């Protein structure tokens, strides 16, 4: 952003009056303000929809708190304590006010502050999503590039089949089978959960990412253990993002390879490898980053089914469980995190476009 701005200003540096400058700044501020306003509106809308869903859902959160055996008096006391006796709009305004002061309320299904719950579950999801995306990128991008370079050849066909199978597998089934084979029969990977019990609580929490924390603590054994637990679910998620990323890379590359400048480069006698990697690939990096960001974002939502099957204490599982228990504070908290991630990633890829793509100026 800043690079573009100085360039713009530099271009006009010859003679703009201070007034012009101020106007330009004002315009820019206004645009940034507009972006933030629309972001805020999106988040508010997101929360409102969630809030309404929570209220029309035929699940009684009070019952979850006081339990089946509660007397009417106990029930009523909890009902009032949770603020449910207030009109809906009052509840909503109160909630927004609380959120703005950093108070996300208390979850009724864990009895903890929502903010603490999220601090615990979100890193688990981030760790899984990051490794999954990493696998997807490291394999998917070269696969897509090679497939595009050999269009119609056997690599292309294999890449297509690999990707389409990735799109077509029910992940919960694949997860169960993977667990059975690689953990149950072969014993190559760790079982469900984030670490062996022997290591639980051994590594002090710094980032919440177990692999990072164990490195910080210098505990190589804990690192290996965490890795052995994450590798299977991350590979599964990685396979799905691989499928998506390789297909997108392929079609971006095809578009570039048919462009005129490539023909020119070829005519000039550049090696095929140079043409593909140095020219075509460099040009697809911007849309590719968007694709990767989107794929990362969808994994950050927490892959509910994968988390359930691998007993992975992540955000997806947390929100799903909360939803089915009518635990709206937890659901709303989770929605804020997921919504922020989505909006943030979108904003980031927009910015990258503006900064990196010469055409968008």
């Amino acid at each position, binding site marked *: 952003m800043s690079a573009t701005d100085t360039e713009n200003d530099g271009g006009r540096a010859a003679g703009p009056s201070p007034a012009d400058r101020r106007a330009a700044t004002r315009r820019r501020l206004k645009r940034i303000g507009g972006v933030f306003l*629309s972001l805020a*509106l*999106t988040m508010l*809308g*997101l929360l409102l*929809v*969630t809030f309404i*869903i929570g209220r*029309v*859902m*035929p*699940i009684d959160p009070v019952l979850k708190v006081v339990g089946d055996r509660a007397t009417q008096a106990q029930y009523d006391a909890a009902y009032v304590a949770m603020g449910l006796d207030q009109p809906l709009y009052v509840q909503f305004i109160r909630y927004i006010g609380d959120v703005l002061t950093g108070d996300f309320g208390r979850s009724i299904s864990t009895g903890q502050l929502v903010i603490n719950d999220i601090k615990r579950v979100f890193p688990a999801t981030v760790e899984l999503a990051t490794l999954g995306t990493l696998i997807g990128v490291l394999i998917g991008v070269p696969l897509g590039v090679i497939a595009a370079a050999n269009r119609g050849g056997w690599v292309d*066909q294999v890449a*297509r*089949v690999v990707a*389409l*199978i990735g*799109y*077509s*597998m*029910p*992940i*919960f*089934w694949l997860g*169960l*089978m993977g667990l*059975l084979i690689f953990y*149950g029969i072969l014993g190559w990977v760790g079982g469900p959960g984030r670490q062996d019990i022997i290591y639980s609580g051994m590594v002090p929490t710094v980032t919440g990412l177990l692999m990072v924390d164990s490195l910080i603590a210098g505990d190589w054994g804990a690192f290996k253990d965490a890795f052995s637990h994450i590798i299977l679910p991350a590979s599964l998620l990685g396979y799905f993002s691989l499928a998506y990323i390789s297909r997108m890379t392929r*079609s971006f590359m*095809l*578009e570039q390879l*048919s462009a005129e400048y490539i023909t020119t480069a070829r005519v000039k006698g550049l090696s095929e490898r140079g043409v593909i990697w140095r020219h075509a690939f460099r040009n697809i990096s911007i849309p590719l980053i968007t694709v990767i960001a989107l794929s990362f974002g969808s994994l950050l*939502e*927490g892959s*509910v*089914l994968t988390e359930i099957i691998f007993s992975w204490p992540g955000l*997806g599982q947390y*929100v*799903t469980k909360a*939803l*089915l228990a009518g635990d709206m504070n937890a*659901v709303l908290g989770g*929605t804020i995190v*997921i*919504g922020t991630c*989505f*909006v943030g990633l979108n904003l980031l890829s927009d910015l990258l476009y503006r900064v990196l793509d010469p055409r968008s100026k």
Partner: protein
Amino acid sequence: MSDVQYQSRRDWLLTDAPQTRRQARLGAIYQGWLTFRANKLAMFGLVILILLIVMAIFAPLLAPYSPFSQDLTNRLQPPGAANWLGTDHLGRDIMSRLIHGSRITLFIVGTVALIAPIIGLFVGTVAGFAGGWVDQVLMRITDIFLAFPKLILALAFVAALGAGIGNAVLALAITAWPPYARLARAETLTIRNADFIAAARLQGAGPMRLLIGHIWPLCISSLIVRVALDMAGIILSAAGLGFLGLGAQPPMPEWGAMISDGRTYILDFWWVAAMPGLAIFIVSLAFNLLGDGLRDVLDPKGAKE
């Protein structure tokens, strides 16, 4: 002119100089079909889907047993002569359930694939065409729905409306439309200021007519590609809902629910979960192959060099 009579129909379709608009249009479709047919994988997908439809239509004739009849003494039998794909935990014939389940799968996919793109098309084209605050409002709403985690939104709707196949379809449609709206809006923006639209406007066409008569037809081909590619995702999401017990209700043989049934037996009686898993896999693979082939034919950007 007189040559025309002796031409084969093939040549007529493939001629470089079509005589009528109809001939040109049919010719383009035929050309597309030839491209599509050359794609073996796509043809494979098409054949599987045709088989699936046939299976769904003639399910009662094809299924060896009733999909509901239980036999507790004959439960969890491995695939064999009597039950080709084995029996489940209540002694029901898995093959018969899979065959009847194809109807549910087709119903879900068909309905969602009809509802979601239409909502998306409507919202997207109106937003793109109208511009201004209408665009702003509609796109904010689209963003809100996009920012929701899909499965969780579907879960919330099903939980709010009550579990059942109809509500599951509705929930899936509600989560599936925003990308179509984005797509349709982008297409609309590129053609909104085209000359032929201006021409039509000069001829006195109202906004509704422009939208339906000129803009929608141009958006449809890219939407179709997108739908074909999304079908598999819809099947998998529906199966996911069924897996969580929020889709089709027992004893309906919905494939996802069947996997969920078999989940507890997966280590010792693998076929109970594996057979419906395989069925879902084959059908969504078929849809993906078909969609991939269709994209080569219909998507002007992706395929042609």
